[in-house]
């Protein structure tokens, strides 16, 4: 048997596999590209500075002057509050699971976090509706939506932070302990900084998920066309909700606004992603740059 001889059967199998993989890739990419194309082309019509800086107050459906400012502000505030609550909480849980947890409690926490990952967003919305609004008597507000968004973001943030912390080499923890550094200081000064880029990415994934959640927002922020910068009282706008309500309309100007809002949402998520990458790059262990 000569060393230069490659069996034609093997060559054929190789080509077939290669072609199948390429086809699969193209099939997977098609929806992504087509969504982007559709949103950009339909949203571009109404997407302008006026759109971004005005609300729908006193604007009728046929009027092309309205905008999504109230919705953008609302979403930013709702997601912002949810993130501010979730990030420290998720980090604490992840640190517990990785550094301290042994036995029953840690297993139970991991199990329930996994269950919560699959929680439908409308269920989270209904829970907050019955507990916060009907039970405790608060009214619809941006904050109520933030609570539901926190519930949705928490499992992703916990799981990804946990995985990132586990990836930190045990040799680093040993090096720190051997210097006589306490466990907590080791975690905050050595383990967390090393895992930071991965944790930031995980948090951004969580935020990207909740930014577009419509169901809980539908139930909890109420109805308004005006700008409300206070998330703790009165109804507030929300971008996914705005997209929903405008696109249900039969008037073309309203539909255009809906598409423009969809484009805004996608751009928002892309910006968040970029910021996350910048933070990760800046904070990366210097040798990895």
């Amino acid at each position, binding site marked *: 048997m000569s060393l230069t001889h490659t069996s034609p059967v093997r060559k054929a199998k190789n080509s077939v596999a290669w072609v199948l993989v390429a086809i699969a890739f193209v099939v997977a990419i098609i929806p992504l590209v087509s969504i982007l194309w559709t949103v950009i082309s339909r949203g571009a019509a109404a997407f302008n500075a006026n759109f971004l800086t005005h609300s729908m107050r006193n604007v009728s459906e046929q009027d092309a002057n309205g905008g999504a400012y109230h919705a953008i502000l609302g979403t930013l505030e709702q997601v912002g509050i949810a993130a501010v609550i979730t990030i420290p909480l998720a980090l604490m849980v992840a640190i517990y699971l990785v550094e301290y947890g*042994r036995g029953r409690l840690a297993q139970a926490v991991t199990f329930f976090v996994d269950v919560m990952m699959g929680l439908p967003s409308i269920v989270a919305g209904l829970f907050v509706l019955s507990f916060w609004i009907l039970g405790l008597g608060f009214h619809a507000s941006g904050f109520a939506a933030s609570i539901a968004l926190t519930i949705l973001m928490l499992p992703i943030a916990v799981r990804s932070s946990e995985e990132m912390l586990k990836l930190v*080499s045990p*040799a*680093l923890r*040993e*090096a*720190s*302990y*051997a*210097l*006589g*550094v*306490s466990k907590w*200081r*080791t975690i905050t*000064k*050595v383990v967390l*900084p*090393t895992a930071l880029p991965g944790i930031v990415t995980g948090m951004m994934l969580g935020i990207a998920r909740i930014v577009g959640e419509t169901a809980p927002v539908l139930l909890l922020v109420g109805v308004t066309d005006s700008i409300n910068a206070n998330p703790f009282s009165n109804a507030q706008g929300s971008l996914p909700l705005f997209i929903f309500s405008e696109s249900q309309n039969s008037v073309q100007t309203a539909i255009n606004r809906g598409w423009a809002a969809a484009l805004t949402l996608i751009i928002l998520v892309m910006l968040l992603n970029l910021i996350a990458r910048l933070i990760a790059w800046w904070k990366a*262990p*210097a*040798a*990895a740059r």
Partner: protein
Amino acid sequence: MAKRIDVSGLSAYYGAVRAIEDISLTVEPRTVTAFIGPSGCGKSTVLRTLNRMHEVIPGTRVEGKVMLDDVDLYGANIDPVAVRRTIGMVFQRPNPFPTMSIYENVAAGLRLNGKRGKGDLDGLVEQSLRGSNLWNEVKDRLNKPGMGLSGGQQQRLCIARAIAVSPDVLLMDEPCSALDPISTLAIEDLIAQLKNEYTIVIVTHNMQQAARVSDRTAFFNIAGTGEPGKLIEIDDTPRIFANPSQRATEDYITGRFG
């Protein structure tokens, strides 16, 4: 500053498994003691019980006494974190902190414990880097990442980091096994210098290294798989290599096993 270690009746367990049994030995101050023995004989475990690193692994425990001068390190009111500040350790694979520069790595032991202002730190970092023969190679790039050095340099950085906290004892767990012969020579020369100030215990797989570097050598062995490791013999290095008193020691040294 360098202190004496007295070990008596030391046994260590991983869960229910006894890894080492009834170890008793003495390490004199300002000497280098080498632990040799075949793989799995427990020499690293013995080393790690000396600075209470063994108990960092969950489910482990230790019986017996380890005296540092006149203090029992496993006494009831002894803080393990404080013990590790007094007894430093260098590991087999160099492990500088990746998020820190060379300067920050050396200063880490002090900074992470919340001590010292900036002024003291510069002098101490230089002193430690000189002490580990790394100063001349890195003095112009103290702010560069610690991970950007070669293996031998990284290990010397870890040694500088360990001596920056002024320990009484320095433990080295196969510090040269991941390094090339030139770096190994550099570290062995360093050990010869360091022993003037510190008590050193070094675990090594390399018998020739033990013969070159140490004043006293301890030979550990296990009777079979699953059996605990035991101390077979400890003696002055020239004597243990030329004329060991135990059969097992002689077999190991002459390469009949291990």
